[in-house]
């Protein structure tokens, strides 16, 4: 099917179910997509075939189903040469970006690490202080009460720190995953177009 036939058929299919203003926007969008595919080296018929039948597209539009079209990227040999020659520049920049991302993650996780260590030591020393405090009764009642008080305080403080660690870890794990997956998503979206 040729480009003009595709657009005509699409317009006819859309006219049954879509508002006239939206028809114009959709036709422009699909026309632009065909142009993109032709620019990538596909013939007009191949580009139209890649999009699918107009009837299916309209059906998918009304069911809100996503159609993903893979756009092939053809690399020129000159680009490979440029990539190899430019490695000292883009390689060091890439390394700097990776190290920057790693340092951001490291700084981000310093908070939960600190509260986690404080929490564990607080809870353990609190339990030890409370459990061992009765042994101090022979040395003086004030020592017993002091140690018991400090133990209870440390236990509460440790528990609070552990709760903070849990909350922060939950928040930061999402952020870290986003940091790690972001370059991959960028690369995938570069090669796909969602209709």
């Amino acid at each position, binding site marked *: 099917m040729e480009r003009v036939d595709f657009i005509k058929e699409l317009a006819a299919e859309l006219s049954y179910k879509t508002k006239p203003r939206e028809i114009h926007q959709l036709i422009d969008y699909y026309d632009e997509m065909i142009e993109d595919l032709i620019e990538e080296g596909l013939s007009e018929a191949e580009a139209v075939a890649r999009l699918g039948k107009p009837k299916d597209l309209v059906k998918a539009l009304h069911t809100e189903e996503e159609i993903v079209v893979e756009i092939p990227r053809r690399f020129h040999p000159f680009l490979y040469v440029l990539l190899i020659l430019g490695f000292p520049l883009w390689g060091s920049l890439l390394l700097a970006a990776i190290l920057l991302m790693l340092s951001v993650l490291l700084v981000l996780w310093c908070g939960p690490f600190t509260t986690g260590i404080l929490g564990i030591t607080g809870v353990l020393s609190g339990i030890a202080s409370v459990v061992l405090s009765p042994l101090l009764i022979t040395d003086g009642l004030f020592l017993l009460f002091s140690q018991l008080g*400090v133990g*209870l305080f440390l236990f509460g403080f440790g528990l609070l720190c552990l709760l903070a660690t849990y909350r922060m870890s939950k928040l930061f794990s999402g952020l870290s995953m986003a940091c790690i997956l972001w370059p991959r998503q960028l690369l995938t979206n570069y090669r796909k177009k969602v209709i």
Partner: protein
Amino acid sequence: MITINKKFLVSVSLAFMFLGLIVGFVGFAMSGFSVQSYQLDERHWYQLVNFYTE
């Protein structure tokens, strides 16, 4: 599955801290607010609380 309310845990932690402060203050008051009284001649392994004095 047992679910523990996080707000409840925060309140419990704060209650422990508050109780600890009161009991600790009572102990310090019983010593006559004297830091020196915590310095025993023979310190036992189970005495975990002390004051550092030069």
